[in-house]
């Protein structure tokens, strides 16, 4: 299948985005913003629609809107500290509503929109591939250079602020980065499934990883497996690539959960027997002494 140029491009595009999207996912999940990717892709779609209505480049407008959406969420998050999902809901619905209205202005648009909604990785053109490569490179540099700051920030924002991290600047940069990566991932799995590419690999990785770096590496491995596996499967079974990639990622996650459950149960049974084999006298003793408690109180 790799002798077709479009499949080569598809593999390149998918592979590149699978290097960066899962790392972003780890941070989004830990910051409890796993729906942010979904939201920004809807906002980005409004940008694409506006771009075509105004005869601008839809791709550029899509990127612009995704970045603006990310910043808007970050701003709203500060005013809804206790409910971090509220700004996500506000921005997601606004994006979708705007996209619907704009799309109705150009009736012939709706057909090409299905490629945005469901992705068209096999139709990725060389320009899009270059954009994806640039975003991936930028993202990897961003996460590598700022890894210490991002770790501290993800752990606790106030501690980070006291430790000299420019919290506002960092969250702003993170929001911009999120917008860029979401917009870059859109042609691969489509607006509706961007979240799958970003959140599913990190959901898998966070179950297994012992440390932070390990979580990022595991997430990227899961992402790459899902994208390449899904692409190949969609080629041979003639199914839509976006959906197949998302389903493959879901399968990986479910398999991971199953393996973990079975392993856990086996270990528990093993340990349970080991504990029972210990002679009674040396077991941990729980005792209650009412006498002592009463004297303590008085």
């Amino acid at each position: 299948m790799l002798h077709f140029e479009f499949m080569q491009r598809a593999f390149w595009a998918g592979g590149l985005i699978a290097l960066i999207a899962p790392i972003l996912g780890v941070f989004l999940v830990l910051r409890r913003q796993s729906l942010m990717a979904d939201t920004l892709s809807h906002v980005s779609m409004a940008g694409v629609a506006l771009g075509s209505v105004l005869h601008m480049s839809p791709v550029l407008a899509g990127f612009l809107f995704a970045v603006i959406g990310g910043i808007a969420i970050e701003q709203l998050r500060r005013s809804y500290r206790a409910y971090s999902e509220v700004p996500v809901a506000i921005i997601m619905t606004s994006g979708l509503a705007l996209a619907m209205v704009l799309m109705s202005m150009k009736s012939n648009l709706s057909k090409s929109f299905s490629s945005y909604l469901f992705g068209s990785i096999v139709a990725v053109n060389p320009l899009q591939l270059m954009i994806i490569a640039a975003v991936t490179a930028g993202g990897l540099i961003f996460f590598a250079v700022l890894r210490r700051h991002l770790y501290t920030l993800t752990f606790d924002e106030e501690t980070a602020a006291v430790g000299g991290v420019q919290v506002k600047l960092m969250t702003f940069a993170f929001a911009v980065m999120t917008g860029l990566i979401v917009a870059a991932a859109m042609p691969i799995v489509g607006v509706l499934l961007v979240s799958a590419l970003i959140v599913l690999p990190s959901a898998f990785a966070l179950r297994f990883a012992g440390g932070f770096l390990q979580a990022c590496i595991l997430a990227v491995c899961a992402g790459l497996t899902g994208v390449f596996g899904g692409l190949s499967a969609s080629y041979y079974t003639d199914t839509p690539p976006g959906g197949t990639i998302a389903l493959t990622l879901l399968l990986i996650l479910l398999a991971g959960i199953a393996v973990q459950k079975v392993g856990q149960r086996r270990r528990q049974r093993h340990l349970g027997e080991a504990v029972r084999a210990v002679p009674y006298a040396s077991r941990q003793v729980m005792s209650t002494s009412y006498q002592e408690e009463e004297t303590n109180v008085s």
Partner: protein
Amino acid sequence: MNIAAMNNVVYGYDGVPVIHNVSLRIESGEFIAVSGPNGAAKSTLLRLLLGLVKPWSGEVSYAPDFNRKAIGYLPQQAASFNSGFPSKVIELVRSGCYPKLGWFRRFGAEQHALVEWSLRRAGMWEYRSRKIGGLSGGQKQKACIARVMAQQPDLVVLDEPVTGMDAGSRLQFYQWMRDYVSADARRTVLMVTHGLDEARPYLDRVIRLEGKEEDCQCFTSNSCSAPFGQEVLLH
């Protein structure tokens, strides 16, 4: 030597002031406790001092030669973080060294030694390879304290650090802070605590915040005696 001061600071929430005209000075070489009933704005006092919130009026100032990056802060309920946070205890404690290392400076032998020292004094060295999410509440708290101390801060600011810790660990912790302050005259530890009775032998000074009941303008505190000089009272 004076390292920080608050002058006539007023601050509150939703238009209601909770800090009324507070002035205080933090000297170096002191182990200070901040105590007071619930709602006396102890945590707020710390947050004002750290610059996390800006006072409505009055000012918070630091000595010109004081390095603001040499502050270590343990927020209240620091240990109630996301239990899925994918970090080993030692990884978390290492991150305490980041403020002094900046973006790129290598994590050298000195930092490794500090991390080990910090983990050992916190009694968490044996747990260094465990995931923090799987620790008990008291252990998480100790891990977070170790993280702050690995930074070797000149000013340590701790908000209810002994929450969830057993009696033995609490006394070890007070002794650690006492030793830390005594080892270097530039160091100061400021902590909010409800366990004043057990901490008292280790302390240099107690800052007592009174609740804001109108009829409770107690300017003399019954439990503070000679060794504790300055007191702050809200009225």
